[in-house]
């Protein structure tokens, strides 16, 4: 039994994609670190994998740490930011 986690993509993760989510599969009690590993497996390019290293997972209310359990809420992957 695994969980399907749809991950919302932002910024450079959208480059060359029509879809704005990417779904990955993790174990029921997976941590954010494991989610990161699972996403690494499904990314197609070196660029995207290297971007992932510098990116953070987040819910709609907070940025997650790698040690956190993957929450039940919607998950996003946030590349390095540059507002303003």
């Amino acid at each position, binding site marked *: 039994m695994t969980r399907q986690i749809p991950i919302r993509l932002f910024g450079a993760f959208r480059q060359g994609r029509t879809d704005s989510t990417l779904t990955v599969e993790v174990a029921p009690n997976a941590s954010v670190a494991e989610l990161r590993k699972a996403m690494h497996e499904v990314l197609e390019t070196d660029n995207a994998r290297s971007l992932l290293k510098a*990116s953070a997972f987040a819910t709609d209310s*907070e940025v997650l*740490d790698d040690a956190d359990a993957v929450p039940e809420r919607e998950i996003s992957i946030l590349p390095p*930011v540059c*507002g*303003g």
Partner: protein
Amino acid sequence: MILVDITDSVLDPLIALGHCCADSHGAADLFIGRVRNLNEGRPVTAVSYDLHPVLCRNIFEKISQEALEQWGEHIHVFLAHRQGRLDVGEASVIAAVSSPHRAHSFEACRYLVEQMKVRAPIWKQEHYVDGDSEWIKGHVLRNPA
């Protein structure tokens, strides 16, 4: 008093200054970030801003709340960011603070801008004269220590 916004519409500095205003406030500071025609020597024609609207609003509120904790509950704080494609010269962000004395207005307004730059989930894709476009490298998002 805190007012934050994420919007598709033109940002209006008079709304910021109308919010950052009180009979006891002698000083207001306002910052506008605008799209530049040049980045690292490359001519830019427009910038597309991609945001995570819900998280961005939450983070704007957190940053504003921190400003109240640091400079006093009585200050007024405004922080708004635009999303979508903006031409050169258009305002992408407005931050403003009013308070009784000027030092607090300057410092708190600067705080909003600096924190927004490193903590808010906002990405920009620059469009160049030659038709090319590129996502700008930014700051790695981390939870504040």
